[in-house]
């Protein structure tokens, strides 16, 4: 019964990505540094060790006696480099990888604090996202910044938990797992699309990018995991208590976080005829988003806890 919880905790040490020399804002390239400083047998980096130093210009070692094999290997490595460049170029046409890297620049302290805020947001005082010369601070430096690490890990943990819960009820089969995963993913996509549509239609000029919305939608998976765990451990009563608790906490969190971004402080163009209606619409969007969360949590978890 402790397995997914341990799996979730074991995911978090992998977030210690860089040594704390913060020269660049996002990441230091720790590929060679980690290998040199910490040696090969570090438990957290075992999987990253061997494949980490094959960066762009890896020189193939000419140990083959056969010159044809040498030539073939050099040809193959040049083809692989070309392919890698092409793939990078194509991907960066659709989404900027730098922007994505911003959302994964987390560390353990941030993850722990954010999880506590997600479960108990009532004592958190300062909800402003701090900026640094017009660029928002990375999650490593600012607790209020949205990130994509927690939603991704929570999503995967939720799928594993769902599989386990269905296995306990003897309803498990491998395609059910895929079905659960795609259902949850589709709900996130629907919610993000609805939010984008409403933000566009009501001409709300906020700086919420798509990734921000995905991040805020993904935070409900933490609540779902907590709810399902309590439902499995404590039965149906525990499920409803945990559902109520995580719904309230999540609604509070969403309202406080989005209020900063969607409802701007009254600026100079707020005098006039429109502002109260616009303000109302923005309030409606925030509250509707908050109310949508418990519905989805209930919808996606009630069939796991009978």
């Amino acid at each position, binding site marked *: 019964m402790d397995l997914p919880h341990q799996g979730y905790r074991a995911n978090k040490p992998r977030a210690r990505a860089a040594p704390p020399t913060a020269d660049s804002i996002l990441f230091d390239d720790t590929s060679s540094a980690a290998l040199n400083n910490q040696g090969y047998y570090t438990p957290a980096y075992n999987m990253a060790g061997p494949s980490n130093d094959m960066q762009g210009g890896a020189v193939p070692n000419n140990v083959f006696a056969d010159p044809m094999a040498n030539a073939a290997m050099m040809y193959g490595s040049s083809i692989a480099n070309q392919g890698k460049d092409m793939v990078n170029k194509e991907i960066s046409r659709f989404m900027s990888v730098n922007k994505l890297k911003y959302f994964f620049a987390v560390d353990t302290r941030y993850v722990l604090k954010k999880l506590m805020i997600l479960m108990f947001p009532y004592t958190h005082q300062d909800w402003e996202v701090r900026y640094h010369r017009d660029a928002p601070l990375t999650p490593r430096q600012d607790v209020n910044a949205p990130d994509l690490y927690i939603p991704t890990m929570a999503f995967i943990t939720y799928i594993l938990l769902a599989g386990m819960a269905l296995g306990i009820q003897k309803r498990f089969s491998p395609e059910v797992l895929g*079905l*659960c995963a795609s259902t949850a993913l589709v709900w996130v996509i629907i919610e993000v699309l609805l939010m984008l549509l409403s933000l566009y239609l009501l001409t709300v000029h906020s700086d919420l990018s798509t990734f921000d919305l995905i991040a805020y939608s993904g935070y409900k998976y933490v609540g779902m995991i907590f709810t399902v765990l309590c439902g499995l451990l404590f039965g149906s009563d525990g499920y409803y208590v945990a559902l109520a608790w995580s719904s309230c906490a999540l609604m509070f969190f969403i309202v406080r976080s989005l209020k900063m971004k969607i409802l701007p402080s009254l600026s100079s163009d707020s005098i006039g005829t429109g502002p109260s209606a616009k303000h109302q619409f923005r309030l409606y969007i925030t509250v509707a988003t908050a109310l949508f969360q418990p519905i989805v949590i209930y919808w996606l978890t009630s069939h796991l806890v009978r």
Partner: protein
Amino acid sequence: RMLPSREENMAFTLYSLIQAAILCVNAVAVLHEERFLSKIGWGVDQSVGGFGDEPGVKVQLMNLVRSVRTVMRVPLIAVNAVCIVLLLLFG
């Protein structure tokens, strides 16, 4: 495709989301400009409102419909053809 177990929630697959999206975009694309949209006051020529910075919901919606129709007209032909072929082959 029926679900194997009696789940009470709608189990979506990504394919059903794609199907729903294709149907919605098709629905928006068949709204004819002169014959229908102008008749109900949603035409292009009626969307020039005031030049303030607050266009309003209806103008935004009209702009969205018009831009979806303009952008998706040609790709929809291809996507619909692919969808028809797939449905004929695999049911």
